[in-house]
């Protein structure tokens, strides 16, 4: 035992003390902390804590109008799924629909009314009260209305349907303006125009992919963006696992889209010649005796110029392929041709889609299951009546430049982002003295507002939707709030009703909910005998519970015949492109990405979702054929300037084998200068450099008609993507069998029979 002197003793006491302290701290730190049980002050009626409550509602992320079921816990939305009862999506939902939660909980959402106290467009927004905000807006409106100059007010909303659309319409009427515009970049203006010209229909027909045995899709990316992608995916799946009668899918487009990748055959026709190709097929169908209608002479006359030989030359698709496509299309029954996106957004877009309608008619696909089925009139308003195309918005911009617009009311539309720079839309808005925005976010357009009165997100407000593409019968769904509003916001409809009251123009409803309920009461009165309910209240409750409602009103579809002038007008011109082909050798195809038209760029889930074809995340890229890249000495990640006559954007090259060598493609959606922390200053916006060329027949922007050149910058960046190589390189990672092997195999496997 060593002697312990005084110093050592103190050291030991100290060590003991520190040890004991450390022991206490150790146990305290690993112990479960004491928790509190915080009860409600007043228990809510509509949920039990710990138990999920599901509400059926409607998705508003795009205009397809899918039904959703939202899982809520303790008054918070937790998960969005598809509503299984809804005929459009039948329980399925796309990634964009799932990401709706991030609209609701987005940290960049506006939490209350704002007033721009600095110059417009600057970052000088200050919080104000609703009373203050509404008074400021109402006084601006009232002055104009009272002076009979209501037409100096313009309303620009994103596409909304249902009774909110009617409410906006009567508001516009009340203040005395006819400048009410709905604006969605991807609205199918050309399709509406083509259907009106050929079918005489003011609305879209139902394209029955589910029952078709042969699909010719001219540029329509029906699985990822066109009209109603979730519904088309269901139809595609149904048609493809049809056993012996499996549907055959052909995609005709210069750049392979997800639908092209899923198809049996991809035909890279020259951009803009899809309509010519369709007429070539039509020519062959008529000339080879597949069509025997009594108007065959008229058809022969109008199609005489589209011989396979000439069409093959113009479309860069060989005669034998054309002949095979025409034969298989005519022989398959039912078959279906659809067109959109790339094929529709050209200078000849409407003509192209009319040619596709003609092809359907000649193959006997109109009015048949598995073909084009006409819809009855929708039970409620759709956004189409007021959808503004490029020409309309250009006129609005011209009016603004002339000083004809004094007040602009914006609702969630972002034309500053989606209009080409050449339209000078932003500069035109600067000439409008007073802009009020009802958007939930500060995007490029809202940033120019004087006053922002933020509206609820779709998960917090009432609404309803009547899908524009129909189902062959009319269908409607009510969008109900699934949670109480998170912030100091109001529903768009309620803001409008309030403004109407303040401008001495009250509408007959107290709230948006009233307006929607009233509208559905009318639908109920019309169909009371079919609803099997004894009062409107019980119908309303059943409707909210089911989330969807369908009307018994199929149209008989068998008697369509195009009139002589419709036939005589058929013909597709060679597409017009901006820019000299010598200087600008490539056609630029901007395509809708996972960010849709840019509206989803502020949702991190969509940012991190790999692009379907390239697996790129968080950024922009330029898709280029390997041969073209080799000729230009470019490799993946090389930063290039894509230059058109209107300007240039910078993005890295992505070598993409499934694109024509004379075409380059860029995703739409990135390149925001505003719109929150996730969207801003990321990637680049190819819409900026589009030339303002329109399809004269529809007024639609010919967004695929801009020629560009690619200039290397000598810089290089790493493209962020989840796949290393797009090719197998003989590594046998993805083992595949051909279709015939598959059939042989499945035929030899005994099928298990479930005893009944």
């Amino acid at each position: 035992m060593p002697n312990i002197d005084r110093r050592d003793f103190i050291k030991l006491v100290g060590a003991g003390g520190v040890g004991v302290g450390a022991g206490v701290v150790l146990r305290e730190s690993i112990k479960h902390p004491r928790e509190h049980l915080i009860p409600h002050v007043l228990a809510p009626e509509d949920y039990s804590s710990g138990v999920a409550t599901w509400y059926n509602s409607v998705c508003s992320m795009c205009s397809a109008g899918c039904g959703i079921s939202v899982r809520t816990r303790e008054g918070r939305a937790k998960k969005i799924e598809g509503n299984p009862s809804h005929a459009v999506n039948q329980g399925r939902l796309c990634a964009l629909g799932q990401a709706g939660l991030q609209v609701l909980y987005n940290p960049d959402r506006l939490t209350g009314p704002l007033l721009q106290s600095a110059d417009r467009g600057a970052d000088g927004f200050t919080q104000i009260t609703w009373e203050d905000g509404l008074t400021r807006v109402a006084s601006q409106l009232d002055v104009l209305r009272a002076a009979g100059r209501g037409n100096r007010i313009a309303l620009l909303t994103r596409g909304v349907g249902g009774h909110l659309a009617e409410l906006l319409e009567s508001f516009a009427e009340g203040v005395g303006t006819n400048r009410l515009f709905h604006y969605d970049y991807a609205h199918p203006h050309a399709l509406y125009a083509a259907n009106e010209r050929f079918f005489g229909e003011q609305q879209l027909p139902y394209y029955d992919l589910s029952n078709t045995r042969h699909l010719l899709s001219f540029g329509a990316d029906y699985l990822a963006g066109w009209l109603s992608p979730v519904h088309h995916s269901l139809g595609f799946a149904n048609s493809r696992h049809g056993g012996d009668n499996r549907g055959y899918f052909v995609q005709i487009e210069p750049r392979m889209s997800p639908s092209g990748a899923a198809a049996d055959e991809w035909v890279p026709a020259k951009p803009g010649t899809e309509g010519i190709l369709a007429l070539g097929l039509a020519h062959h169908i008529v000339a080879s005796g597949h069509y025997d209608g009594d108007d065959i002479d008229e058809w022969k006359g109008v199609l005489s110029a589209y011989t396979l030989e000439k069409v093959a030359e113009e479309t860069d698709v060989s005669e034998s392929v054309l002949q095979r496509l025409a034969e298989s299309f005519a022989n398959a029954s039912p078959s279906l041709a659809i067109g959109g996106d790339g094929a529709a957004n050209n200078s000849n877009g409407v003509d192209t889609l009319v040619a596709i309608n003609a092809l359907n008619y000649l193959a006997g696909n109109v009015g048949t299951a598995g073909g084009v089925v006409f819809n009855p009139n929708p039970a409620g308003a759709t956004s189409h009546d007021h959808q503004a195309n490029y020409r309309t918005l250009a006129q609005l911009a011209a009016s603004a430049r002339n000083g004809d617009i004094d007040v602009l009311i914006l609702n969630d539309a972002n034309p500053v982002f989606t209009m080409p720079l050449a339209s000078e839309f932003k500069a035109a808005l600067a000439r409008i003295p007073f802009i009020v925005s009802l958007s939930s976010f500060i995007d490029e357009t809202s940033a120019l507002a004087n006053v922002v009165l933020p509206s609820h997100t779709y998960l917090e407000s009432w609404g309803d939707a009547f899908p524009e593409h129909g189902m062959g019968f009319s269908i409607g769904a009510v969008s109900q709030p699934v949670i109480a509003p998170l912030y100091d916001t109001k529903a768009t409809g309620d803001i409008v009703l309030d403004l109407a009251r303040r401008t001495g123009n009250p509408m007959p409803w107290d709230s948006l909910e009233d307006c929607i309920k009233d509208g559905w009461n009318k639908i109920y009165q019309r169909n009371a005998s079919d609803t099997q309910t004894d009062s409107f209240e019980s119908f309303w409750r059943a409707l909210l519970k089911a989330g969807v409602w369908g009307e018994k009103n199929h149209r008989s579809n068998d008697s369509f015949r195009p009139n002589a002038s419709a036939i005589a007008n058929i013909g597709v011109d060679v597409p017009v492109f901006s820019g000299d082909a010598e200087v600008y050798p490539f056609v630029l195809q901007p395509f809708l990405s996972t960010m849709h038209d840019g509206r989803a760029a502020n949702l991190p889930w969509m940012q991190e979702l790999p692009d379907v074809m390239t697996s790129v995340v968080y950024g922009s890229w330029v898709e280029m054929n390997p041969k073209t890249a080799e000729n230009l000495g470019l490799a993946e990640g090389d930063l290039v300037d894509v230059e058109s006559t209107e300007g240039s954007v910078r993005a890295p090259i992505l070598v993409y084998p499934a694109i024509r060598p004379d075409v380059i493609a860029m995703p739409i959606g990135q390149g925001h200068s505003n719109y929150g922390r996730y969207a801003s200053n990321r990637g680049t916006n190819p819409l900026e450099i589009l030339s303002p060329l329109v399809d004269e027949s529809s007024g639609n922007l010919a967004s695929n008609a801009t020629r560009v050149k690619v200039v290397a910058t000598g810089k290089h960046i790493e493209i962020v993507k989840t796949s290393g190589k797009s090719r197998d390189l003989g590594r046998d990672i993805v083992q595949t069998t051909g279709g015939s092997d598959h059939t042989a195999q499945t035929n030899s496997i005994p099928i298990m029979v479930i005893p009944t």
Partner: protein
Amino acid sequence: MNVSIQPALKSLQTAALIVVVAVVGIFIGYFIDFLVTDSPEVSAPEQPIAFSHKIHAGDNDIPCQYCHTEARRSPSAGVPSVNKCMGCHNEVATESPLIRQVSEYWENKEPIPWVKVHDLPDFVHFTHKRHVQAGIACQTCHGPVETMDKIAVHSRNNEGPTLLASSTGEIMNSETSDVGATQNDHWEMGLCLNCHKQHDVVDGKAVRVDEGGFDNGLDCWTCHK
């Protein structure tokens, strides 16, 4: 040259002694904390209002689920809203100083911050709904709450009579108190396992069996998911 290593050894010895004392200290500290924080004052903490389950559930025979309404529908039993308290105490014992405290919370529209007594770790999934609907009496786990003025974690080591619901759902007094009985400390895995080993589920009700228990009741994933 004669060099001694004695000084170096001495300082080494002292250092070793310091380390030993510190390590022993850690054990002592850990134990002290164990003694202090698991004392009755801590397992039965002071509540913001000295609510007595004895008066409510015992003397006045109010069923547990009159206030804990969520127990049969939800994983969590639920704490009654302040509104629920005021439902009775608008009329009953309004002048009592404790009830005045409740009214004060109600008037200020503030929740009463009750301290959680029965707390399972986050990695345990327990649902009241299943157990209540299977006829397990609340007292099986929570102890004789109707006798407690201040709610406390019930320790099996000083066993009292335990209530067990019969298969018909009728609550009966089980003197044998074999449900969940364990030598181990309470509110640990043994409590769950013992009961799961000894009971089967027949027509949705927990029924005692001699051996076996119910099939998936012993799967790790039953609770840890």
